[in-house]
């Protein structure tokens, strides 16, 4: 590319951003943004996304939803924190497609996380409730594996799954890397639920997206720890109601932002 032209483009872009920052619809800015040499953080996630069906979360996630391919790490303080309601709308839309592949549940919930007695009395996915949330049960595959890592990697690698969900207490960092590569190879959206701890938060991770879910008084608080192309954010969602009623209004958002700052201070940034 012509060097002069290049600098010119940068120069004019800087001006344009300065003048038209308030109006992203400005045609001049739009023309500039089409420039191939221009790199923006958000444009890194050019790949398609699966909407979460929660407006506030969609807005905070790059591409407007869960990535269609890749590993999503969800750190939960305990089982039943609302984590499954978070991903259920996306799973439902994936399984309802005409040529849907499997939606694999690996080792549902295998380990006690923090509540020891869940292990004593194993939990079974309740089919009527899943169907009521729109999941196409014909595409659901459940595999009880202990340890789940091998089965999870097979499911991701095989290319037979649109989505795979696994529950693991501890995942080695190298295993996460393997899972991410397997998910890319099989073009699968992989969710891994793991226990939330300070150590787990500070660990580096190869996952495309990393969030924590904690139950709060009404619903759950979601902190985005890592995502490709979006800043950290915190969102409060009311998960036990219809998704449309999610609190995406200003007040909740402002509270969440303050919370996010506190979390950001406390947690050492992995990247």
């Amino acid at each position: 590319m012509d060097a002069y032209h290049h600098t010119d483009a940068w120069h004019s872009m800087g001006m344009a951003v300065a003048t038209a920052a308030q109006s992203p619809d400005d045609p001049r800015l739009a023309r500039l943004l089409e420039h191939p040499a221009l790199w923006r953080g958000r444009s890194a996630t050019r790949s398609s996304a699966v909407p979460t069906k929660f407006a506030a979360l969609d807005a905070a996630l790059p591409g407007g939803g869960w990535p269609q391919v890749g590993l999503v790490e969800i750190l939960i303080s305990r089982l039943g924190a609302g984590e499954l309601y978070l991903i259920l709308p996306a799973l439902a839309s994936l399984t309802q497609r005409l040529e849907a592949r499997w939606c694999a549940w690996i080792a549902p919930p295998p380990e006690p996380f923090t509540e020891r007695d869940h292990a004593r009395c194993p939990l079974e996915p309740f089919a009527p409730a899943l169907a009521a949330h729109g999941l196409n049960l014909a595409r659901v595959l459940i595999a009880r594996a202990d340890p789940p890592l091998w089965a999870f990697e097979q499911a991701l690698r095989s290319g037979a799954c649109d989505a795979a969900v696994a529950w693991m207490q501890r995942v080695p960092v190298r295993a996460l890397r393997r899972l991410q590569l397997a998910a890319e190879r099989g073009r699968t959206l992989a969710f891994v639920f793991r226990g939330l701890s300070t150590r787990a938060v500070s660990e580096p991770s190869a996952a495309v997206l990393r969030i924590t879910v904690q139950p709060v008084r009404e619903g759950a608080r979601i902190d985005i720890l890592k995502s490709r192309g979006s800043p950290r954010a915190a969102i409060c969602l009311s998960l036990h109601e219809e998704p449309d009623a999610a609190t995406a209004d200003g007040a909740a958002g402002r509270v969440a932002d303050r919370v996010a700052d506190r979390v950001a201070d406390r947690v050492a940034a992995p990247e």
Partner: protein
Amino acid sequence: MRARPQRTATGIAPRKRPAPQLVSRNAPRTEQRALPFLEPRELWIGAHLPQLALEALVEAHSAPEPHVPQRLAVAELQGSSQCVVAANDQAARAGVRAGMSLAAALALAPELVVLTRDPHREQALLERLARSALDFTPRVSLAQPDGLLLEIKGSLQLFGGATKLGAAFLKKCRTAGVHPKLALAPTPLAALAGARYTAWTAPRAGEAGLVRGGSRFKVTDESRLVGALAPLPLAVMRWPPQVLERLAKIGVRTIAEALRLPRAGFARRFGTETLTSLDRLTGRAPDLRRSFQAPERFRMRRGCTYDLEHHEAILEALAPLLESMEKFLEARQRGITDLECRLWHRHASPTRCVLRLAAPAAGGEQLQTLLGERLAAIALPEPVRSFELRSGRLVPRILRAESLWQAGEHGGGGASSQSVDLIEMLRARLGNDAVYGLAIHETHRPEAASRRVEAATAKPDVVRSTAAGWPAFRRPLWLLREPEPLTESNGMPQRRGPLRLIGEPERIETGWWEKEGSIARDYYQALDMRGVRLWVYRERSKPHRWFMQGVFG
């Protein structure tokens, strides 16, 4: 055409032209009359299984306590009422007969154990008998629904005559728990008719003495066939009931009487099929029977000159066997769903490694991968000396075209082979029960509403949202296998601290007509101290205990 004695239209051979006598060791020499002995072209053993309906069910039913004499009967719905199809000896002694209504049978024997007829098992038993009959002759054919035909002309020399062969076959049947009636005749239909007649006249338990002791139907001379058939009642032909009824009205009850009727008129009145079957009976028309083919299986054993200890080495040694199996299946365009690999050791009993596949497969490499997974989970007691590969039943393979798009691309590759491969891969390592799908069962009881099903067979059904009549968020996503009892304080449930009940209660009660697992509960959603939403209930009956049954995700 073969030269044969001229016959009249009625089928009675004239007593003329003595043909050169053919010598046979089976020829009945006792009653040599003017009739020449005609060596038949074929010799058929007809086996009639009068108690097939019972025998097919009994082997499974009476297995736990075989020595307890039970009155057993098999019933089937005929028209609008249940009819007894077969009864065992104990039941027959009480007067239960095939053909009587079930109500009448139960009135005669109130403690009668009634089984429901299962045609599939009857068919399976018949095929099993046919397979064992293949030991005697390659020409075995099934005579549906309860007969078997063996062409034994070529096997007489080997087995030392028809009597010995028949006895050997009978013995084999008895070990299988089946008691057939046999008859010998030059035509298949005559053999069957004879066998049915034998079964008919055999002394039955409870009525011995009324009927003369079992007659035997054995014809090895073609010229005597018509004479032997003559006294048989027409019912052995199994013609349609209306035909038999009309024949009875004009006074025709035996085969001889039917043979005496003019052919043209007989065909006009009772149909050409009836005449054809009469011709086949006497050997006038050819009777072609479809031979029974035993289902093929692959089985191959290979020994080693050295001990194999490592799984990789075993797998490598298995590769040629798998390759030849692939060729075997390829040539037949078939696949297998069951594969057993047996590993023999020097002292220890052989190790079995069974592979069950979700879909028919034939590829050697795929099977090798799966076998490798399964073998890795098996601990070998000793080094392997030799190994064997046994396939299950061959099933038709479903060949699919590959999708243009890769899986996941543009919505491509839905239920491709990969999805089946994944299930098999997981099953090979985790076991068959560990991989399953989910299905809804229509019931009010939450613990029975969700069922495990075979994942590969799950059909894409219509998505039913809140079909059960409750909002989606009223039910938990996780259900405990067993409800967990909760402690109580001041009438409120406790689980590591007090539970806060939220929302409206929901009452779930089963109807009074449902005796099994009847419940009467008031369900609540409850928040525990950590903000986890639980599904708890309080029993409506005393002592009103609290239980936790589910966790909202």
